[in-house]
């Protein structure tokens, strides 16, 4: 079982990221998942987070209590949710957007310039998908095939190719780094 928190600003695709991970796990990897979201009244720019619980059996308590993975795409999100991260958890950040505190416990921390990489691909809206590729490679919680299918399933048809390219970029960034 794994509890995952995505945190960032409204408009970055934070909730969509949660949906894609949940879809990859429950529909394509045939596990169980549940996703919850928290957002303010603003359409864009406000603090926003989504929480995903993955499990091999039916999910019984769907709110994240202690997260195993934190994906932070804003400083505010990092500051708010870093304390709930497990001592042995995994921290993934957009290195251009988040300044981290000194490491705590045995937390494994990985960083990627996801927004910058997305801009290189032509549009910063792909930042969350770049991050999802990175997430898939770093955590291995959901299969790459499952995630790719879930990405393709969750975006407008004419952007599937772009999104899969963005996903691969994030995935390769992790593989190349290690």
């Amino acid at each position, binding site marked *: 079982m794994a509890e995952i928190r995505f945190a960032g600003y409204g408009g970055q695709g934070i909730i969509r990221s949660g949906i894609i991970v949940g*879809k990859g796990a429950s529909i394509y990897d045939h596990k*169980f998942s549940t996703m919850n979201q928290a957002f303010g009244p603003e359409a864009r720019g406000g603090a926003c987070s989504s929480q995903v619980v993955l499990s091999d059996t039916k999910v*019984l308590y*769907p709110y994240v209590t202690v997260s195993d993975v934190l994906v932070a795409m804003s400083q505010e999100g990092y500051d708010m949710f870093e304390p709930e991260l497990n001592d042995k958890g995994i921290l993934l950040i957009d290195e251009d957007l988040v300044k981290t505190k000194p490491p705590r416990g045995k937390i494994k921390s990985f960083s990627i310039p996801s927004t910058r990489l997305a801009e290189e691909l032509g549009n910063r809206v792909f930042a969350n998908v770049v991050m999802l590729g990175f997430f898939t490679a770093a955590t291995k919680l959901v299969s790459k095939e499952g995630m790719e299918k879930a990405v393709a399933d969750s975006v407008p048809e004419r952007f599937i190719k772009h999104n899969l390219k963005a996903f691969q970029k994030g995935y390769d960034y992790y593989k190349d780094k290690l």
Partner: protein
Amino acid sequence: MKTNLKAVLTGTHTLSGNEACIEGAFAAGCLFLAAYPIMPAIETIERYLKRSAEVGATFIQMEDEISALAAVIGASWTGKKSMTATSGPGFSNMMEHLGLGVMLETPCVIIDVQRTGPSLGIPNRAGQADMMQARWGSHGDYEVITLAPGSPQEMFDFTIKAFNFSEKYRTPVIVISDEYIAHKKEKVVIPPADGIKITPRRYFKGQKDKYLPFKRDKDFVPRMVDIGDGFKFHVTGLTHDDKGYPIMLEECQEYNVHPILWKIRNHVDEIVEFQETGTVDAEIVIVYYGATSEAAIKAMKQAKDMGIKVGGLKLDVVWPFPDKKIAELAEKVKAFVVPEINYGQIVSEVERCSYGNANVIFVSHGEKGINNTDDIVSAIKLALKEKERKKGIIEYRSQAGSS
């Protein structure tokens, strides 16, 4: 009615409760939604709009919730299965026409996605404090059927059930969910169209001049016709006779309104549905519904691991209340534990139906929005420790901050 194949999205999907609800409605043959947008019910309207063109359904945004339900009742009389979706503040506005729907015996479905209250409360936080409003919110004597789904899958299944009940008993039916189920995304399996049981409308099949809109059959359910088909009749919220004309006599009040209650009360056993787990040898039974389901199931597992004999009763249909079942369990068990996201509503019904035969312990939501598992487990332990039969409801105070 022919089944529109595009209306049933057969397959496995990742849907939120709100989205699953609309898919359930389309699968049941719903063709009309009138609503006034409100958090956290908004995604129902979005989904309906997105799919309405291919399904051939109609959406009207009304000026408020009062007119939304009025439009739904009107649309239902034209032969279209109709629904509305709202949250607490809008549900309050709908109370007037909930009564009208009951009095005109009009099939329709009302989705109430509960948030906190009173008044505006917190728009995007879950609550279960409209449970009594669903039963008693409108004035006058009436019975209402209310279903309480506990997951997006149940949101799909129960919305279909709601349409079926509304057609079978010619009455408004409420599906009461909450922000938590509404926004939670989970796997939802939609069966093929021919695998979904649909109750068709009970139509009058006689001569045009012989139709009486409130003439009851042996089940106390009158037959319907579609407005516009050339039948001449009258409907009114005033007390009326079989023809639908107002008659201001007490005998008519009895003749008109009492059967509206009978048609539900005489069929309670067919309507009431619940899921029982491990109640056979249980000492403690958790009674739960809707959003608290998962926390209750987890607590049940934890308590079982500690060697406590604990069972669960999930209420799928909340109104009419399963009086008989609770009374029967009360004679066997030591106590009921009732977790709710409010400060005590369904728990009072559990207490009423246990007739002093079992202790009733209430677990409110504390500060965490949804009941946390530890609180429910602690309440179970408290129930076990209690040796005496206590009068009234024992309130377990949440230990805030734990999880």
